[in-house]
């Protein structure tokens, strides 16, 4: 642990009706390796736990006397990388995502049905959960749509090269 926790208070932003996600991700991006992160918010930000969990941060949430929340995010190992840019979520190796909550196989559907099915399924899933889908090709038109809707994803062909394994972290990029 190299230094003091970095502190960010997003309560004023939230009270003004603003969206602090961008601020939080910027703050995470600036953390030194191993540095913890203390967040103050007006509610318990459950979706954020999954997102930062994927980046290697454990969390401890505590309700304050006035109903606000204090959350301490600490890197799970001292080598935790500083947060990557959102695009980097779409590579397979550097993520430690929760196990898929739901799985689907859309290999026998003609394009663009796999996209429709996948997007339909994640609409009904809670933020921070993961959908695993098997496709028979890389869904090029799906990725911009996932990005636009704030979902993170990672995907790759299996070793045998005939199945594309896609995992989507619901709200992983957050709109």
């Amino acid at each position, binding site marked *: 642990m190299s230094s003091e926790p970095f502190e960010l208070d997003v309560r004023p932003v939230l009270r003004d009706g603003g969206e602090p996600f961008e601020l939080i991700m910027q703050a995470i991006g600036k953390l030194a390796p191993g540095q913890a992160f203390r967040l103050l918010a007006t509610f318990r930000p459950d979706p954020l736990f999954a997102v930062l969990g994927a980046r290697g941060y454990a969390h401890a949430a505590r309700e304050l006397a006035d109903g606000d929340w204090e959350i301490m995010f600490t890197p799970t190992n001292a080598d935790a990388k500083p947060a990557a840019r959102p*695009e980097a979520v*779409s590579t397979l190796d550097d993520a430690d995502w929760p196990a898929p909550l739901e799985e689907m196989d859309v*290999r*026998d559907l*003609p*394009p*663009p*049905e796999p*996209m*429709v099915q*996948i*997007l*339909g*399924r*994640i*609409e009904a899933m809670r933020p921070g959960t993961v959908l695993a889908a098997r496709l*028979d*090709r*890389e*869904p*090029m*038109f*799906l*990725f*911009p*749509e*996932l*990005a*636009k809707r704030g979902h993170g994803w990672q*995907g790759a062909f299996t070793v045998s*090269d*005939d199945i594309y394994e896609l995992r989507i972290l619901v709200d992983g990029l957050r709109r």
Partner: protein
Amino acid sequence: MIGVGLSRWTLAYFAVALAFFVVAQTLMVLGFGFPGFALQAPETLVLVHLVAVGWLTLLICGALFQFVPVLVGAPLRQAWVPLPALGLLTTGLLLLVSGFLQLGGYVIWSMPMLAIGALLLLGGFCLVALSVLATFLQTMPPALPARYVILALLALSGTVGLGVVFAFGLSGLDEEGLFAPFIGAAVPMHAALGIGGWLTLTAIGVTHRLLPMFMLAPDKPSLPGKIGWWAALVAILAILAAVVFAGVYPDLIALALLLALGAGLVLLVFYGLDIRRYYRLRRRKILETNSRMAALALFCLFVAAVMLAISLGMGARSASIAASVYLAVFGWLSGLGLSQAYKIVPFMTWLECYGPVMGRMPTPRVQDLVIEKQALPWFLLYFAGVGAGTVSLLAGTPLMVRLCAALVLTGSLGIIHQIYRARLLKDVPETLHPAAIKPPRLFVSTLPAT
């Protein structure tokens, strides 16, 4: 992978291409060009270029601007290119055609229109090649379909280079006579590089991806596909060698072209093996109209190739050459182009209209944008007309040729009407049509590339 958005100008390319196709076919019905005129008469050249450049090349360029990014998994590079390229290619072609009319004595105007037109076309093609190659370079080594397209661009450079030489020679701008040895002798190479190289190789590359995609067939690189590519390379290099020989050793031209023909047939055999594999191993048992019509187009390719080989072996009569080229251009390239446009336009339209809401509200399927039962008779009329036209050309009956051209034109107009209806969502049943969705603009895709 950050994925791919919609290509903004692809449908504008398709629209201009279809307009040129209709104009060219109308001229054929009116008896303009072969067989009423000689094979190398200016009238025939007008027709050939309206079809090869105006219709097929613009169709292919429009398709490439959407297809190449999908192939690479990254956005189009030099994304400003499509619109100015469309302007250059269209203006260049109109001037080129005016130049041919000038040669035929239809236009009395002293400007060297052939040369100016050829230079504008050259500029347009350079832009297209720049953008496509820069996009391909983002992933090395390129996938098999991409390698076919790259080879096609090599053939295109040969075609256009020769075209510029011809245009300068015929415009009287070549006072030294440098281009004179090429003007007669290199016409077969110009045609072979254009139709067999540029147009056919891009079509082969695109079908290697599109057919398996829509039929749900495995499309991993295959050995036949790779051997076919090497054969195609040999064929293109042999034709380019023949071009060089036209300047230095005219005696060797025939040998080089023979080699090209042999390599071309090898390519087609291996391509045929791949295509057979796609259709056999497909997981989508019921074929859609686009895949069924593509099969007819592929059949035309193989028949045309055999006809061409036989007619060259039997002394290359104009009629049999014309019949095989006609079958290749109208049956194979145009038939394939129409069948794929009939799928690509609804697909792009669907993405544009329903992409933003998919998964959030019920949407029609892509198939719901078209009524296949209505399109099928037009396709069948089209292919029947092409078959009959090929026979009429072989038989040398000009009136029959025109009659068949009328059938083909009618079929084309029917198909175009179906594509138009799909674009404007006219065939989507009311019950499936969310009120929030407006029909898109006819010629421009508005979903920004991400």
